[in-house]
């Protein structure tokens, strides 16, 4: 630890590890980061313990990058800890920005999730009755504890104040690099900004030719031989590009998959899923409810597609009836 170096921390909450890999995907640039900064906590790559962070002065860290959603009490504890110890807190990736893939759990309930994971599933040993609980008594005066699993998933700014949002699942390495450089140089936009992304839709960056859209049938990408020069939506392949912020480098549409919406809504949009819904529904070529329902049958579980990365950030937040 040297006083003239930047002090940074990276942490994963409810995450898959892909965001940490995205940092490593900056390749040798990560060595420049290590030269310019002391990485004080980074569970995937660097030794550093929670208790070391707890001992820091408030604001001792210059920047903390939190990836992953807030799903349990450990995630929340570290989110609060990093907020307290760091001058800048960056929500890194879709999960901390909008809830991400773990946020899909908001369509179901804690009990149902635990039931599927531990009790009723063909891959579980028959008769298993063990379900994780926050505290387990072992012996007379000893208890083991694990983090408490919450009823729903939260995005990072539901729990703490967030300075910047770096979207993406995961963020594109060139954007990670640009943002890390901006932090090192101290060239950051106003607080609350979405960084490492464009202010326009994915369609603007997408090279496919777009025409008047009229969809009579939706196809999964493997159900159709697609024309790589034409817009995916024109061919009936669901794409959230019209409603999604660009900056990713059009990674999915360029490989023949519709945009999944991981970069989140465009500036000024309140609910990403609702805008996606608006864009998708309006091109359905039907004039009666029956005709329209028939075409929409080609989209299995639209809500989970429209809110794939953002159920906790949506206006409806979760399904409370489950």
């Amino acid at each position, binding site marked *: 630890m040297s006083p003239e170096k930047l002090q940074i921390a990276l942490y994963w909450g409810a995450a898959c590890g892909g965001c940490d890999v995205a940092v490593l995907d900056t390749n040798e640039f990560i060595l420049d980061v290590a030269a310019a900064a002391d990485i004080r906590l980074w569970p995937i790559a660097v030794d550093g313990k929670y208790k070391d962070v707890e001992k820091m002065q408030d604001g001792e860290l210059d920047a903390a990058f939190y990836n992953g959603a807030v799903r349990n009490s450990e995630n929340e504890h570290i989110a609060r800890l990093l907020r307290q110890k760091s001058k800048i807190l960056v929500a890194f990736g879709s999960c901390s920005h909008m809830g991400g893939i773990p946020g899909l759990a908001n369509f179901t309930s804690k009990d149902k999730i635990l039931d599927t994971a531990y009790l009723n599933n063909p891959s579980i040993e028959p008769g298993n009755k063990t379900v994780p609980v926050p505290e387990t008594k072992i012996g007379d005066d000893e208890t083991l504890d694990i983090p408490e699993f*919450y009823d729903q998933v939260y995005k990072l700014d539901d729990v703490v104040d967030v300075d910047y949002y770096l979207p993406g699942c995961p963020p594109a390495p060139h954007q990670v690099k640009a943002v890390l450089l901006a932090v090192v140089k101290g060239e950051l936009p106003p607080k609350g900004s979405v960084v490492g992304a464009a202010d326009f839709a994915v369609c603007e960056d997408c090279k496919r030719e777009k025409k008047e859209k009229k969809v009579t049938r939706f196809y999964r990408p493997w159900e159709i031989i697609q024309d790589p020069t034409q817009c995916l939506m024109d061919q009936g392949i669901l794409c959230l590009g019209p409603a999604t912020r660009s900056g990713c480098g059009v990674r999915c549409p360029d490989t023949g998959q519709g945009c999944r919406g991981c970069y989140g809504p465009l500036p000024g949009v309140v609910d990403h899923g609702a805008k996606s*819904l608006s864009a998708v*529904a309006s091109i*359905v070529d*039907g004039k009666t409810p029956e005709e329209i329902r028939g075409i929409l049958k080609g989209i299995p579980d639209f809500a989970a597609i429209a809110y794939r990365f953002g159920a906790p950030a949506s*206006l409806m937040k979760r399904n409370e009836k489950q």
Partner: protein
Amino acid sequence: MSFEPKIVGFLCNWCSYAGADLAGTSRIQYPANVRVIRVMCSARIDPTFVLKALRDGADGVLICGCHPGDCHYTEGNYKALRRYELLKQTLCAFGIEEARVRLEWVSASEGQVFAEVVTDMTEKIRALGPSRFRVEQENASQPVHQEVTK
């Protein structure tokens, strides 16, 4: 106090708003539970408006437009219908009862139809009870999710 549903009504300028106006000038009685917002076309109703109304405490949202084939802008009401069909699926995934959001075609001469739609919808929502967001707001003094407080 008994529960009075709050319904936000988005009415198209050309048919349905005129229809509601006719209900008024004809002195047809209907429940005062609907709050009408005039929009130029039912296609102007972004699904976000519906979600926002529900989130802000409306117990129901009524969307009215011109009958199929009668749209002032030729195709706007079909777009509204398509969005409505997909919106219903989405609301169901979030556990919102289907009866809370309703699309009806009301022409400028159908004051009586408008009154009947509002009456029927008000009674159906009265039977459902307040929306969960309204309940949340009314209990705002108690944190809804106690484990997470900002």
